[in-house]
């Protein structure tokens, strides 16, 4: 049975439809990633699960309880980490932990034991008396996660927890999430980073409030339909425009070169003459395996 069930979720802000008929299920002990660009609707979905946003249509259930009607009962099972840092900047690391512990009735020995465990993985112990506002971005996120974990929630809702965090801290953060998953905690995490999708059990591409595709992380990139080539050549405007003028080729800048998207039955050899005409050395073109980003872009274009 699913731990989280969202069905037909719809939410508009004025004329803008932030979330459009969105459904998904998450099993207990699973890490589920909502992936998409800014403004895709990830935050609205997570905030609906926290009862901070009331949906126009659809329903959300957590552990069999209706979010809109039985939220009081859900509260004690829920850990929420919002997108922006939302702890008391003028309180120290320990005071923040103590405050959130106190709210959940985690005090005395239970609090001390729990903080030791949390310090163990967050490495925040040396900073216990530092004010939260003076922590680095990565430390802030680890403290926010610690505050959400102080009372052993069954479900963690993390809204872009690694945005603006350095790569090393991101690694550590995900290590913590994987540890939690092993302890049976269900985690829903939103992220704009494609590389984090691989760490999740399942992921869902979100774009313009809709679900583009959902799959197990390792098979998600197999959903790419077509052939992908990498052209190792400086992507000048003239070159990109010239390539895109060719029917059957979709060219995009990618790093120092270009990604060329072709249909499944097509092949780059069919375009040799035209490529040479554009000044491309055909030996610089290699077929590659599509990554998640290619996959995402393809799904995004199919929708719009």
């Amino acid at each position, binding site marked *: 049975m699913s731990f989280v069930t969202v069905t037909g979720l719809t939410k508009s802000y004025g004329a803008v439809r932030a979330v459009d008929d969105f459904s998904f299920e998450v099993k207990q002990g699973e890490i589920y990633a909502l992936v998409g660009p800014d403004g895709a609707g990830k935050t609205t979905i997570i905030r609906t699960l926290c009862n901070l946003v009331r949906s126009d249509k659809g329903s959300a259930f957590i552990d069999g309880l209706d979010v809109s009607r039985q939220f009081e009962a859900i*509260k004690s099972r829920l850990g929420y980490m919002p997108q922006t840092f939302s702890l008391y900047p003028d309180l120290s690391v320990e005071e923040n932990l103590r405050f959130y512990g106190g709210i959940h009735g985690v005090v005395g020995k239970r609090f001390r034991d729990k903080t030791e465990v949390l310090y163990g993985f967050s490495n925040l112990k040396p900073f216990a008396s530092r004010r939260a506002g003076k922590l680095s971005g990565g430390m802030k996120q680890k403290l926010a996660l610690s505050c959400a974990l102080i009372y052993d929630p069954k479900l963690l809702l993390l809204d872009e927890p690694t945005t603006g965090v350095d790569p090393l801290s991101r690694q550590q953060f995900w290590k913590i999430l994987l540890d939690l998953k092993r302890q049976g905690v269900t985690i829903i995490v939103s992220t704009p980073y494609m590389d984090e999708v691989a760490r999740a059990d399942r992921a869902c591409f979100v774009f313009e409030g809709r679900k583009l595709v959902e799959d197990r992380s390792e098979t998600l990139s197999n959903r790419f339909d077509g052939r992908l080539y990498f052209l190792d050549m400086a992507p000048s405007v003239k070159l990109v425009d010239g390539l895109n003028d060719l029917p059957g080729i979709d060219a995009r800048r990618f790093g120092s070169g270009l990604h060329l998207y072709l249909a499944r039955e097509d092949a780059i050899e069919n375009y040799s003459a035209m490529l040479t005409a554009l000044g491309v050395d055909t030996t610089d073109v290699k077929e590659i395996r599509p990554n998640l980003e290619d996959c995402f872009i393809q799904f995004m274009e199919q929708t719009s």
Partner: protein
Amino acid sequence: MNKAFMGLVKKEFIQVFRDKLMVWIIFALPIIQLLLLGYVANLEVKDISLDVYDFDQTQLSRDFVRSTEAGKYFTPTTPEHSVLDLDLSFREGSREMALVIPEDFSEKLTTNEPVTVGLIADGTDANSASLGSGYMAQIARKFSQDIYGLERPLKVRNRVLYNPEAESVHYMIPAIVATLLTIVTVLLTSMAIVREKETGTLEQILVTPISKGTFLAGKVIPFAVLGMIELTLALAFGVLWFKVPFVGSALLLLGLSALYLLTTLGIGLFFSTVTSTQQQAMFFAWFFLIFALLTSGFFTPIANMPQWTQYITYLNPMRYFMEITRGIMMKGAGFVDLLPQTISLIIIGVVVFGFSSIRFSKRTG
């Protein structure tokens, strides 16, 4: 739940005392304000500089001028400008009033005819102007009695109740204490709640099992406590430093202050529900404070206000609290004497606090 409440209160106090500036704002500034206002908001008028235009220049007219010096209300001076330009010295700010004695002054007095002297006052200081005119009228009456030698001279008995020395500081300090309590509670409450909105901690708390009622109590009670400490501090200062007499019951004053706090905390809470930044909250709080002060009877007695303004003052909780502080401290008013004010405060408090907390609960999803 109890633990959660204690956690909230503890956190609030840590936050207040961690902010050194906040500690200053809460404890030092009010004392400085009290000192300043105690000396500045002085309603007595003495040593009014008085330009004398004596066109009579007789013994009698000079006697009259000398009589104005009695009681130290006026200091007669020699005009720097001609009588046609007498307003020049007002504009320069060197004189506050001018006295014009007509040339037939002594002639009319000796023949028992009515005589009029001219008194011109600088109305930009309305208080000095009206008090000065009053003093001058008294002086003139006394002078004419002495001259005409009326058999039954009109006796003016001036008696000031409750404040026999007419010390305005005795009258002002209770009002200032009331003002300080209002500033601290309205301003700090609204800002403290809005700050939780700004930092996002409010949403964070809404997702925790803490109830909105507990959150509100944990948010409001620390400021009620701070307000009461502040009140005690300011009262002690008024009594010890300014030697303001404290005739009534201190316990009654503290009790009714706690009741008054229900309205100010409610107003602070209301502002926090209509604003989303601390600046906005501060703006609302100051707007309210100016309105409340002007219609509280602090500076202008309510009885002197136009009728429609008097009706507005009934809505102002500070008005009642000002009557309570002045009543208890100066008149020794008891609970029964202050029953109308108490009932008014209960009504306003329950309505304002009730409305604000319902609004707060609805607003925060």
